[in-house]
């Protein structure tokens, strides 16, 4: 699996328009929601303080004023009910987009996601779909402490039926969010908090960026770094640094974590013969493990050194910022892993 993307979704998707502008990640998401709400009558937004207030991070700003309280719906502090409502509504053809304020709170609605959203299509023999999107703010780096900083993709990695989307830049964030809204599968849409203020060129108008397809964020010939979300800009920084040392690094932005685009990454590693996988979550049982295993298994003879794994330490996220920096990986750790991998293959 993972490699064939059958676009079974009949929802309309414009060609990606031309004129890009520097837009923030937050604004790109806001635009996507606005365009989606405009296009899909069945779409509605639901979450805590997303209406008049516009959400804790401002992603739903102004949409309540434009689309009204029926379609931009505040809820009580009831995460299970929020996601339950989405699953039920999706089962009858609505396209709910939930905001779970912090990804750490997905524990409250874990059952609804894993046992309900991810399974209704399968266990009821295709009679239901669950076209819902769960947007949530994840990741650390701002002193949020153990319950406002976690990278949660590992919680859902082993769950068939769930799509996990994880953009690294504003243009992808917009296109991936619209693709997620169009998707007939339930999507966990991860928004790294450290990226909300990132700015880049974002095309105007409606477009989708395909789910399940990685992007080559930078081409190179000596080593492939596979990264997601905040680790992508970090990997690019490390790549620049290594360029100066004469190492040509290719950076793959996975974009969709589940199911992931093995084809693109294996092709890259087959070419470079070396790989480093970079994630913010703890090492054991994280996305890095899956990617490392897959690369080793499928590029065994092409690899000239074992795949390097860059991850968070095996600890919760402490409140103290210096301690948090110790726990989370950064550009330096990626650069170090690249050097070690180059070294090991000489």
């Amino acid at each position, binding site marked *: *699996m993972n490699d064939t993307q059958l676009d079974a979704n009949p929802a309309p998707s414009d060609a990606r328009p031309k004129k890009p502008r520097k837009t923030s990640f937050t604004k790109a998401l806001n635009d996507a929601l606005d365009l989606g709400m405009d296009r899909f009558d069945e779409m509605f937004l639901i979450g805590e303080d997303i209406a008049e207030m516009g959400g804790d991070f401002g992603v739903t700003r102004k949409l309540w004023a434009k689309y009204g309280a029926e379609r931009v719906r505040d809820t009580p502090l009831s995460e299970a009910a929020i996601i339950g409502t989405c699953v039920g509504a999706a089962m009858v053809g609505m396209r709910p987009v939930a905001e779970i304020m912090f990804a750490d709170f997905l524990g409250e609605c874990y059952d609804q996601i894993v046992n309900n959203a991810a399974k209704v299509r399968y*266990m009821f023999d295709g009679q*239901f779909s669950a076209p819902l999107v769960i947007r949530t703010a994840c990741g650390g780096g701002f002193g949020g402490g153990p319950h406002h900083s976690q990278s949660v993709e590992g919680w859902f990695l082993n769950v068939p039926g769930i799509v996990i989307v994880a953009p690294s830049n504003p243009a992808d964030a917009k296109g991936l969010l619209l693709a997620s809204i169009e998707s007939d599968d339930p999507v966990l849409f991860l928004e790294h908090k450290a990226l909300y203020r990132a700015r880049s060129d974002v095309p105007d108008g409606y477009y989708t960026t395909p789910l399940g397809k990685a992007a080559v964020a930078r081409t190179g010939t000596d080593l492939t770094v596979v990264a997601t979300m905040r680790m992508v800009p970090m990997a690019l920084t490390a790549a620049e640094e290594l360029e100066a040392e004469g190492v040509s690094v290719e950076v793959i932005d996975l974009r969709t974590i589940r199911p992931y685009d093995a084809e693109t990454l294996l092709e890259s590693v087959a070419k470079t013969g070396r790989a480093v996988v970079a994630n913010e979550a703890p090492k054991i049982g994280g996305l890095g493990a899956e990617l490392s295993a897959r690369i080793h298994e499928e590029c065994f003879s092409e690899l000239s050194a074992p795949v390097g794994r860059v991850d968070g330490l095996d600890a919760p996220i402490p409140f103290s910022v210096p301690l948090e920096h110790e726990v989370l990986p950064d550009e330096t750790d990626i650069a170090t892993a690249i050097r070690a991998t180059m070294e090991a293959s000489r």
Partner: protein
Amino acid sequence: MEREQLLDLYRDMWLIRAFEQGLEAEFEQGNVPGMLHTGLGQEATQAALANNLKASDAFFPDHRCHGLNALAQQRHKGDGERIMAELFAKSTGVCGGKGGSLHSADPSVGNFGDNAVEGSYLVTVLGVALAAKMRGESRVACAVLGDGTVGRGEFHESLNMAAIWDLPVFYACVNNGYAIATPVGEGHASADIVDLARGYGFPCEQVDGNDIVASHDAVAKAIGHIRAGKGPYFLEFKTWRWQGIFAGEFRPEAEVKYWREDHDPILMTDELLIDRGVDADELAAIEQQQHALIAEWIAFAKESPPPDLVKATADVYAQWEVGGR
């Protein structure tokens, strides 16, 4: 209640009983995979629901609702045997054998499927109700929930959200006195579940769930309230299940005797019908007809082929194929 209507309900109760008895016999012979929870003893509650819910409504059945599921299938599509086939894990089942007893659904008859994680659909039902409300449909979204299931926190989240959003949710609480082996009064602050529901400010009523007339009327009233756009409604059926726990009977003898002999919903209805001049032969004929029908359904289920193995990886995702071995 009109004699004819009562006879219909009586017929439905016999369908449920025959279904469950036939199924139980097959299960004991090892012909039915998985686990089995039956609705024996709760026929009046289920028949009352089945007779008031339309195909355009949406109900989430609990784990004892084979009868309700079969009635919905039978009334609206004429293919009740597909519930039986599902329990036998056959390709002709409503979910092609992938769901089984705890996950039989057919939305075209209003059956949105059980969720074997007890109580989880207490919040799912909100979304179905919300969609109906947003679209201006007159759909009633019904959650059938056992007394034990009320222990889940989602009970509170659901009732609260249904209340603040005035959603068309019908909570049909089947209080059969026990959660597995735990008496309702030991598992909850009150043995009357309505006591836990009243704080949310919408109507909460109780009814003798073995009295088919009272149950039918109570359901009709609840659904009428909801269809009139007046928001959620909570109805507690006081009933009792024949099935004990797998280790056998554990309930007081007098209690067992009361419910099985003195307060059996079918025997109670027998009396009512005889009072109205229906003769005993006619009643016996109904019983036999339903047993015969169920025998056919069982035969159908047994003869049906198992699902094709390609189904093992079908419908995981809408947009991607999942590989096999």
